[in-house]
């Protein structure tokens, strides 16, 4: 039976759904223009984060155990809504500049966020799968949003074909796990885990689950799609899928691997640790060779997937907290960086190469300073958010006897300093000879302000953030 509590726990999902249906209706009736859809989307996302905030201290399962709401899932809902708001803010100037501002963008954006929230609050492998598919469908289309551009078509098609392949792995893994447990419910799997964790069928299912989710988070060796798709997609979409998409997939990975499977110290944890090390090394080393900023951040996002996997591989509550804190830091920083890139990009897709940023500090000192802040945070320099995230994740790895992984992480972070700081060197220590770019419009300024403020707040007050999603810690 459904009760009042079921609906209360799923309130953020309902507000998102109502918003998206409202936008579809107004778009179909042509009540307002795309701007009105943007307004509706931002309002809906604000309401959603408010409702999720009210659920922060609630916990329970709803709809016959299909979803579970707790502090972590509510917190992630807020983070995802924030990513949605920032994306919606920068989307209008970006697409209006290219004459491609359409209301469908906000419909797909909100549908993707519904899928992500489902992933973060899934308590059943079926819900998890549907959430992943809902998110992926929307991201496939968004990657090719400007239909007339070949590069975006290529990006969307590549993402779609490889993504469908990964989904097949994921679904097969879920089927095998269902076969060995007899249920898709995460609580039931958690209860049965001790007895079946060494069954070949179950291990095969887990391996396929890791392949499927590994693709969504772009971890080595399932990262091949990321550079091309990130580079080809519209920059606002790249920023959204690099942050919100990764956050949701990592939340799902952490919920399944740490909460449900309790992988700490098992072979599965070793496999994840190996993937983590490979992602850190390959992501950071290849990023050095990139001259396009979007492509560089794509490889950097592969490296960040490695750091996050280290937290998952730890398999402890600490690792879980580390992953969520890191996701917060990574999301606010990378969103901001992509907002800057989107502003700097010309309509003919030029202006994203590293050379174009030469001497930016001379005529746009504020934007250059904000970009430098993001780069410091991505490197992991205190007191910014990126440092705190890395600190917690590596600490969890050390405590879980994965000291070698933490060492790899610290060493590769040092390598990453080279290419992040190179952006700052370009902006500050070279003479400007490029064209003058006007200041970003107000919405972009607001988005930059929000993300820059959060980079500092998360870096300075990590325990406050931690308390939001881990009340016990």
């Amino acid at each position, binding site marked *: 039976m459904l009760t009042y509590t079921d609906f209360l726990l799923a309130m953020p999902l309902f507000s998102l759904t109502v918003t998206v249906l409202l936008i579809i209706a107004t778009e179909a009736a042509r009540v307002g223009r795309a701007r009105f859809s943007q307004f509706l989307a931002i309002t809906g996302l604000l309401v959603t984060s408010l409702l999720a905030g009210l659920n922060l201290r609630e916990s329970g399962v709803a709809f016959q155990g299909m979803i579970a709401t707790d502090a972590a899932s509510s917190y992630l809902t807020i983070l995802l809504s924030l990513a949605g708001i920032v994306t919606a803010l920068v989307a209008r100037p970006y697409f209006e500049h290219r004459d491609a501002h359409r209301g469908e963008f906000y419909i797909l954006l909100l549908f993707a966020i519904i899928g992500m929230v489902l992933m973060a609050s899934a308590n059943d492998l079926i819900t998890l799968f549907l959430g992943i598919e*809902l998110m992926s469908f929307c991201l496939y289309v968004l990657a090719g949003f400007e239909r007339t551009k070949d590069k975006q078509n290529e990006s969307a098609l590549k993402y779609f074909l490889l993504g469908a392949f990964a989904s097949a792995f994921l679904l097969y893994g879920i089927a095998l796990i269902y076969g060995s447990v007899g249920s898709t419910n995460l609580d039931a799997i958690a209860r049965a885990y001790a007895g079946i964790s060494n069954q070949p069928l179950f291990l095969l299912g887990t391996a396929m689950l890791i392949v499927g989710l590994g693709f969504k988070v772009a971890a080595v060796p399932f990262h091949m799609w990321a550079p091309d798709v990130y580079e080809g997609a519209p920059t606002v979409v790249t920023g959204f899928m690099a942050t919100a998409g990764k956050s949701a997939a990592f939340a799902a990975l952490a919920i399944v691997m740490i909460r449900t499977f309790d992988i700490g110290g098992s072979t599965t944890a070793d496999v994840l640790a190996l993937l983590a090390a490979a992602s850190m090394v390959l992501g950071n080393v290849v990023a050095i060779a990139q001259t396009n900023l979007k492509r560089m951040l794509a490889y950097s996002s592969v490296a960040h997937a490695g750091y996050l996997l280290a937290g998952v591989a730890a398999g402890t509550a600490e690792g879980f907290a580390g992953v969520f804190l890191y996701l917060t830091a990574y999301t606010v920083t990378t969103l901001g960086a992509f907002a800057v890139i989107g502003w700097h990009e010309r309509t003919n897709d030029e202006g994203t190469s590293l050379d174009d940023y030469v001497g930016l500090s001379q005529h746009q000192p504020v934007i250059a300073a904000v970009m430098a802040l993001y780069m410091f945070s991505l490197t992991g320099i205190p007191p910014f958010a990126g440092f705190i995230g890395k600190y917690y994740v590596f600490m969890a790895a050390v405590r879980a006897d994965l000291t070698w992984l933490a060492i790899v992480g610290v060493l590769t972070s040092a390598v990453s300093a080279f290419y992040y700081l190179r952006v700052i060197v370009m902006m500050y220590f070279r003479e400007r000879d490029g064209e003058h770019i006007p200041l970003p419009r107000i919405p972009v300024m607001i988005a930059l302000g929000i993300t820059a403020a959060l980079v500092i707040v998360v870096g300075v007050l990590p325990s406050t953030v931690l308390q939001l999603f881990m009340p016990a810690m």
Partner: protein
Amino acid sequence: MTLEQLMFYGLGAVGIGSGLLVVTRRNPVMSALSLVLNFFCLAGLYLTLNAQFIAVIQIIVYAGAIMVLFLFVIMLLNLRDERALSDRLSARKIIGAGLAFGLLLQVLYILMSAADGFPQKDEALAVSTGTVEVIGVQLFTTFLFPFEITSLLLTAAIVGAVLLAKKKLD
């Protein structure tokens, strides 16, 4: 031999025969049509197990929608010289063989794990799980939430498809 056994062996024989035709025919359209026949046999086998719902879905989704899509793709690609497909692409062939071998291992594993005899067919259990009615009740009680999410998924897919495929926007 009971009628049920007769059905099983008859459908099984036609199923295996059509399956062999799928991989041996040179003409891709013939292969695809043989696969349709194979799907029908499989649906018949499901029926003998009292799994009406899966049998119907097997025909509607696989034999109907997916195979039609297959045929469309084959005809669109216009594979006149299918020899080009069979001579080259050795790497893909190896991967394909590997996947097929993996599936074989999986079937063998299931057979081995049931070495002490398969469970006997339980008529009452089969009727209480496989009929359309039972599945419908499950779908609208336990699985109501995923069912509704599927509707969102389809709506999102429609919006995306219209956006990408519409000839002229506004």
